[in-house]
């Protein structure tokens, strides 16, 4: 499953929105996500990919497209360390 598919499933499950509501342009604000939703998304991603997401780096992320790229980058960094 691609990072985009995984992120779509996690984000829509946590925010209780249909998968159709998720596009690369979608923001957490569009999905009415609160801080608790975002924490739960982060934890699910960290567990799925065994990565560590730095909360301060998330300020650069504007939408799900940015988020997908960020997670792919983290997975790549982990691959290099292994």
């Amino acid at each position: 499953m691609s990072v985009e598919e995984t992120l779509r499933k996690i984000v829509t499950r946590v925010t209780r929105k249909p998968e159709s509501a998720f596009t690369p342009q979608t923001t957490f604000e569009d999905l009415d996500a609160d801080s608790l939703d975002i924490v739960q998304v982060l934890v699910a991603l960290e567990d799925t990919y065994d990565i560590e997401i730095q909360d301060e780096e998330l300020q650069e992320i504007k939408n799900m497209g940015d988020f997908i790229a960020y997670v792919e980058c983290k997975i790549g960094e982990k691959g290099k360390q292994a």
Partner: protein
Amino acid sequence: MGNEKALKGKVALITGGSRGIGRAITLKLAEAGADVIINFFRKRSTAESAAQEARAKGVEAHIIKANVGEPEQVEDMFDEIESQFGRLDILINNAASGVARSALDLDDRGWDWTMDINARAFLLCARRAVRLMKSGGKMVSISSLGSRLVLPIYTAVGVSKAALEALTRYLAVELAPRGICVNGIAAGAVETEALKLYTADPNLPQPAWQTTPAGRMVQPEDIANLVAFLCSEQSDMIRGQIIVIDGGVSLTPVSPAKKNDQGE
């Protein structure tokens, strides 16, 4: 404590023991000779670095990932402790989280999340810990002044800490016949990353944390020193107390004047 290795040979679990106040407690207990089990929620690398620092003090250190708000994860954590150590002498209920909202803006999920991690987790951990404390033990809960003072957008956390303090008193009496001492610490604002997050919104009224009658903010090490005392034999006759550690700030509604350059 007079004896620097007063906790030698003891096994201590510190929930949320990798960062901030929890990390200071972990290192203090390690310094006092206890083997430490560091529970963490998200940052494995931070937990590993805390464990390395603890090991440098000559003790064993073990990390366990678990969200203490989730009963199954608490069970798994204690299964691991039981298989790795076979016993537990000290439980520090420190992990905390919370949704920062005023009462009318709080939804059920935010309430449950906060109560589960800050209050119920102590019950879940204590129930399992008792089974591993066959020769008695010490439990310390880390609360905050928000349990009794009303702070901006602190509703859920403040209420959860009030529940935690009440639970501390009940456990103190109910577990006393088993030789287990239970106490709590209500900290004022402690200089940590978590406090920076809480005070980041300039639109909120800012409590006067920066000055205390004692002349400085409370540091994580201040809490850790008190925890170490409450885990020592010297505190055996203190039961079910919530000890305030805030530099005296809760004693007066007036913020003390800042010291001048000469410290006067």
